[in-house]
């Protein structure tokens, strides 16, 4: 297995990055839903206490207030757990942020399967599907700390609503310091000729780590990371699919309507190819240690490798 250097959790990179960005952008304010010590907006509060607003446990209100703050020219960065932003405050986002294109940046912390010992309420892995379905919304899921920093800078620069997926555990570093993030563009992580694998968020780390095992089995993977799930880089995705003729998507997210859904839609209309969606299987989560969750729910590095192998053998 290819081993990457250890890195920080995306949430830590987020807390540090917004603090850095605020040094040169006095419109940035942070709204915290009483989770700052977990989602790491505490880093920002220490540096900019006057630009940090504790909203308490009032998610619908918090997202609504963010819209009002954006309407007077501020750039509100709203942070709490993904489940409370996407599910609980959905109506506020739809009515006050998405439709009016309010310049609000929604930081969905603890997204995915690995949200500590929390279980079904907190494990949010239909967030991308839900937010992707909302008109005017941009959806971003970075892979590592480097991309988190670069993507946040781009997202602050962009004028409009953004849902930004953040995860809890420490995450290996995939990208080097010179990496350039472009909103709405995919990143070819590795060129290959046998099968195209599309991945997003921190699942790209697992897809990358599966490459060696697949190579040992004679499978040359073309790995494409999709950090912006909406708007989708359709042209590049079609080209990457056509390059090998076989497509696997993998994500730490339900296969219903997430990255796999988005790519299936794009390919079905433009260039249909045999395709396998790998990810969470239309289920709710449960409490447990990360390694055991990844294993039980079938999205570990080993599962990525096995899924790609089986698909290539069946279709190749």
């Amino acid at each position, binding site marked *: 297995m290819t081993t990457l250097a250890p890195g920080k959790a995306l949430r830590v990179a987020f807390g540090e990055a917004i603090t850095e960005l605020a040094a040169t952008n006095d419109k940035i304010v942070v709204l915290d839903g009483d989770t700052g010590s977990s989602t790491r907006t505490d880093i920002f509060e220490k540096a900019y206490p006057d630009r940090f607003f504790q909203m*308490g446990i009032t998610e619908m209100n918090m997202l609504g207030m963010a819209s*009002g703050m954006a309407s007077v020219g501020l750039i509100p960065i709203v942070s709490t757990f993904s489940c409370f932003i996407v599910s609980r405050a959905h109506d506020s986002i739809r*009515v006050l942020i998405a439709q009016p294109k309010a310049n609000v940046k929604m930081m969905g912390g603890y997204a995915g399967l690995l949200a500590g010992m929390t279980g079904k309420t907190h494990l949010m892995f239909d967030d991308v599907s839900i937010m992707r379905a909302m008109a005017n919304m941009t959806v971003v899921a970075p892979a590592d700390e480097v991309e988190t920093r670069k993507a946040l800078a781009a997202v602050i620069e962009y004028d409009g609503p953004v849902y930004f997926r953040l995860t809890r555990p420490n995450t290996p570093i995939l990208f080097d310091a010179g990496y350039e993030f472009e909103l709405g563009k995919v990143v070819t992580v590795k060129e290959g000729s046998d099968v195209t694998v599309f991945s997003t968020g921190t699942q790209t780390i697992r897809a990358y780590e599966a490459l060696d095992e697949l190579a040992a089995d004679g499978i040359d993977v073309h790995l494409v990371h999709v950090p912006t799930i909406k708007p989708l880089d359709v042209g590049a995705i079609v080209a990457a699919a056509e390059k090998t003729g076989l497509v696997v998507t993998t994500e730490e997210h339900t296969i219903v309507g997430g990255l796999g859904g988005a790519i299936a839609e794009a390919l079905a209309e433009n260039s249909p190819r045999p395709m396998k969606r790998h990810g969470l299987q239309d289920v709710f989560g449960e409490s447990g240690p990360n390694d055991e969750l990844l294993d039980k729910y079938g999205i570990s590095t080993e599962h990525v490798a096995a899924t790609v192998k089986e698909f290539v053998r069946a279709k190749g």
Partner: protein
Amino acid sequence: MTQAAKTYTPEDMAEFARQARVRILEAVKHAGGGHVGGPYSAADMLAALYFGVMNIRPEDPDWPDRDRFVLSKGHSAIALYTMLALRGYFPVEELLTFDGINSRLQGHPDMTATPGVDMSSGSLGLGFAAALGIALGARAEGRDFTTYVMLGDGECNEGVVWEGAHVAARYGLDNIIAIVDHNKLQQFGWTGASVEERITPYTENQLADRWRAFGWHVIEVDGHDIPAFLDAMEEAGGVEGKPVAVIAHTIKGKGVSYMEGNYTWHSKVPTDEEFAVAMAELGETAGGAA
């Protein structure tokens, strides 16, 4: 006080409210749908706000230092549009496009569509949250305008209202004035002694007590008494360190006898005969205000 306050008398405002009620019913009849009861309970207060209270520039609707108004009871949109038209934000004739395809006057307020609409609303409770954000943002940006937000009493059923009420009090937001149009009825509402009867969502003092309990300064006023309402706004503007809730006691459907206190006029299109009676009671000839 503002330039507008010097220009218009309470009698002028009452006349604009009367004209608004005429235009509202014309627009709803023309559209073949829309709300009437709530717009009528709010009309006098809206006339006072737009012609006597708020510091605004209709010729420059996006002026950054303008006072803001958020109609959180967004289903009364036609009342807001009518007042904006009478105040000069867009032609009065445009009111007849209300609820029509491609109209700037959507069924619920859309800040991206209508000049003078400071915030979208329509899902109850959310306009209030946005208004609080405007007020907190104004403070963060060092701007000293006032944000006015109007809620319905039924809207106060929504939990998000009380989330926001709590946060506003925590921040001591004294640059926001919430006006609760306490017209005692909702769309369908709470069953009274029989299924034919609908009763108030909040009994006497209950609404005022709740806002007070959440740390707001509460003023109660007759929402149809324009001089009294202007006094309430002046008092509200002078409160420091606390957000202010003005509980405005009103009558749903105010101004037309058969609509007053009748919940079925929450949203209803008048027949030709009903329309004629309403126009007569509002002091218009049978043809309306054309």
